[in-house]
């Protein structure tokens, strides 16, 4: 029963994709009905699975799963299958909730129920429609022209995500991974009429492709080494032992190389340094896309994959030992990304870009946690982050929507995403404000109340308790910056007085956008309670540390709960509260970017990474394409070959024409036959005398000749 449901989980969104694309493209309400119905079915299935999983004792030992033979490979079969173990159960829980919430949100975001725009075209955001009411003209938001297409794409995306999560092998995981990559590309470029969106889509696709190629190499390596792609096969202790003890290249074990290759896939997908450049630009897509793909699910899938592959990455390592090569690299990349992206987020003015860098930074936290072996903490932060970051993105979408309303109302065009045009929105959009505040506090790690505090605290405790002080200090600084820029964002957006006419006329968004915010806000608070450490002063032990037991059970050996220490707790409290306070203090009176002391070029320009990559990769590639490939290879070499072939053919044709076709074919065979027939005809016509007796004589003569011949020859 469970297995059947698991097999069926990804199916409804896929069917929804095809139905919308093939049949209901013109009918907008049916399109979103089908998409949400499908998401709801998958949500229901996920919840059933989740609740069933909770009911199983020692679920990590008795997971749900089944597989079928798929491809014959010589004498064996390549198996594909599905499985739900504690880790994927935790992931499918937030995937189901965020997907459903964001599907619902998209209805309001794309202005369902509003009139058609006056000048709206497919491929550009809707510009608004003019309506006349009581003889008074005003502009209202207009419905997205490609409304159905959007729901088709996000359905396909949901299919990819569900496939990835329920996979019990690297192959179908990779399939889901790539489907999501495609959907990410399609949805970033959803408003393809904007050149910036087109470029962002290409950039996202190309950058993640780099990671995907390495990941595919890693998968190939796993397969050539173990002969299987199933997690259960790869994670057998003897297989891991063999992988860890076999040297591959440069003195690194096979397990290490595979781990690194797969991790590069994650670096691309989860936008870790140095492949982080695509995620901020991906904010060109519609906000639900940013929330779902680029905050809650797809980028989390990268982290999910490394968490999933943790037994392989950590093969040969046990808790307390120094980190192995791969884990050190992962810890370094994660920690570096966490602080690096946080510094950039300080100086961004676009409300969504701040969140984008924040996402990169928070994913860095998870990666760093995994790198130091804090398996459960990484998974915990993955889940809580998915909730509060989806909430923040949807909240920012709601803010932008409200601002756009104000822009249309006042008619003067200001950037509705620039935080310096906002301010004072807490009165205009109270529900958005409160939910955004909850999300922001969760992101900052506001103590006790929010989920972000518990998951971040666990990462700190693990880093400190296991003696990884560099990682600990880096992450703590990053957490301080996180709280700071989050408060900066909230202060600039919601507090103070409106800084533009548009902000004065902003209005609360429809219920389809508000409801998902409330649902996600509930989880952003309550999900932290499932992972309160047992020894936490005062609160520990009131609720059992369920998350640790549950997800930790995925591993062969239950990870030890870390000894309680005051240092990480105090650090955590200090960075969260200190960051929040500083953010409020510095920005409560800031009126314009000129007053913002952090608008320094190096941060504003994201440490010049786009420019560096432009010089290092894009420009040389363009140069090679233009100068070498086009001018030299194409126009000189290839065209030269083609032209000489053509010249030679022409010469050959001419020779044939002159020396063969004309004399032989035309004159000899063509005219010659005609002439010969003509000559023989005029010669032979003399015997056609028309006198019957001549014919008779001829017959008799022939008869006699033949008779004589036969007589002498045959007798």
């Amino acid at each position, binding site marked *: 029963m469970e297995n059947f449901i698991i097999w069926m989980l990804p199916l409804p969104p896929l069917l929804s994709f095809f139905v919308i694309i093939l049949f209901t493209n013109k009918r907008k309400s049916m399109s979103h009905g089908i998409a949400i119905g499908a998401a709801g079915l998958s949500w229901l299935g996920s919840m059933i699975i989740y609740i069933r999983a909770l009911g199983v004792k020692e679920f990590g030992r008795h997971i749900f799963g089944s597989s079928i033979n798929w491809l014959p490979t010589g004498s064996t079969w390549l198996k594909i299958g599905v499985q739900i173990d504690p880790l994927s159960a935790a992931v499918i829980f937030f995937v189901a909730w965020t997907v459903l919430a964001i599907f619902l949100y998209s209805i309001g975001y794309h202005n369902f129920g509003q009139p058609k725009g006056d000048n709206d075209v497919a491929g550009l955001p809707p510009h608004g429609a003019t309506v006349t009411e009581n003889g008074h003209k005003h502009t209202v938001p207009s419905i997205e022209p490609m409304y159905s297409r959007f729901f088709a794409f996000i359905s396909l995306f949901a299919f990819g995500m569900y496939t990835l999560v329920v996979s019990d092998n690297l192959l179908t995981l990779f399939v889901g991974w790539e489907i999501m990559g495609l959907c990410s590309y399609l949805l970033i470029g959803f408003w393809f009429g904007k050149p910036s969106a087109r470029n962002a889509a290409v950039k996202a696709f190309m950058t993640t492709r780099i990671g995907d190629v390495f990941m595919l190499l890693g998968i190939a390596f796993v397969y050539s080494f173990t002969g299987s792609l199933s997690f259960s096969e790869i994670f057998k202790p003897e297989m891991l032992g063999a992988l860890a003890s076999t040297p591959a290249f440069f003195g690194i074990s096979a397990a290490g190389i595979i781990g690194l290759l797969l991790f590069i896939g994650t670096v691309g997908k989860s936008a870790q340094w140095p492949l982080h450049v695509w995620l901020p630009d991906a904010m060109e897509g519609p906000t639900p896309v940013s929330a779902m793909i680029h905050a809650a699910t797809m980028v989390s899938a990268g982290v999910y994959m490394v968490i999933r592959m943790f037994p392989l990455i950590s093969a040969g390592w046990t808790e307390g030992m120094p980190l192995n090569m791969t884990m050190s690299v992962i810890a370094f990349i994660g920690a570096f990304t966490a602080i690096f992206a946080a510094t950039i987020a300080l100086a961004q003015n676009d409300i969504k870009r701040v969140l984008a860098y924040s996402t990169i930074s928070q994913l860095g936290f998870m990666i760093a946690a995994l790198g130091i072996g804090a398996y459960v903490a990484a998974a915990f932060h993955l889940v809580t982050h998915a909730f509060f970051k989806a909430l923040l993105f949807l909240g920012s979408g709601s803010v932008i929507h409200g601002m756009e309303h104000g822009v249309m109302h006042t008619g003067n065009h200001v950037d509705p995403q620039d935080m310096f045009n906002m301010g004072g929105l807490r009165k205009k959009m109270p529900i958005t404000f409160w939910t955004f505040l909850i999300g922001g506090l969760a992101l900052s790690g506001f103590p006790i109340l929010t989920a972000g505090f518990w998951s971040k605290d666990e990462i700190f405790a693990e880093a400190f308790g296991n003696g990884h002080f560099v990682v600990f200090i880096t992450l703590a600084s990053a957490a301080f910056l996180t709280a700071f820029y989050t408060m900066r964002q909230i202060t600039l957006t919601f507090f103070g007085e409106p800084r533009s006419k548009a902000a004065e006329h902003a209005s609360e968004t429809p219920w389809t956008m508000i409801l998902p915010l409330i649902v996600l806000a509930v989880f952003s608070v309550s999900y932290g309670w499932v992972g309160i450490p047992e020894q936490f002063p005062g609160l520990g032990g009131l609720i059992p540390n369920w998350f640790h037991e549950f997800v930790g059970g995925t591993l062969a050996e239950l990870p030890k709960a870390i000894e309680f220490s005051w240092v990480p707790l105090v650090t955590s409290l200090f960075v969260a509260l200190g960051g929040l306070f500083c953010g409020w203090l510095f920005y409560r009176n800031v009126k314009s970017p000129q007053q913002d002391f952090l608008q320094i070029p190096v941060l504003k320009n994201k440490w010049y990474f786009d420019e560096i990559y432009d010089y290092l990769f894009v420009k040389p590639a363009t140069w090679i394409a233009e100068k070498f490939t086009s001018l030299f290879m194409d126009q000189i070499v290839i065209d030269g070959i083609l032209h000489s072939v053509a010249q030679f053919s022409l010469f050959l044709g001419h020779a044939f024409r002159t020396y063969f076709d004309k004399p032989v074919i035309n004159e000899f065979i063509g005219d010659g036959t005609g002439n010969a027939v003509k000559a023989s005809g005029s010669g032979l016509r003399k015997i*056609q*005398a*028309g*006198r*019957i007796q001549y014919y*008779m004589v001829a017959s008799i003569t022939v008869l006699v000749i033949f008779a004589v011949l036969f007589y002498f020859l045959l007798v």
Partner: protein
Amino acid sequence: MSIPLSWFLILAAALFSIGLFGVLSRKNAIAILLGVELMLNAVNINLVAFWRYQDPAKMAGQVFAIIVFAVAAAEVAVGLALIISVYRSRKTVVADEIDLMKW
């Protein structure tokens, strides 16, 4: 059986040659037709003679001769009809003058 087979054959050959001569030498189309009849009858003599001398038990030779009569009668009917028709249109029955088939 005092008369040998060869006599019949000589008679038939003579008759055939007379007929052939008539066909080739006469100008009148009716005379040519008469020559053809002579040639056919020469053949009939051959058929009957061979039957009588070679295999009298079977009557194939006689039957064959009768079929030749029948065909000859039909041929004469058609031939005369053609000649009458040609005569009506061209006022002649001289074979050399009926040269419509000439190039």
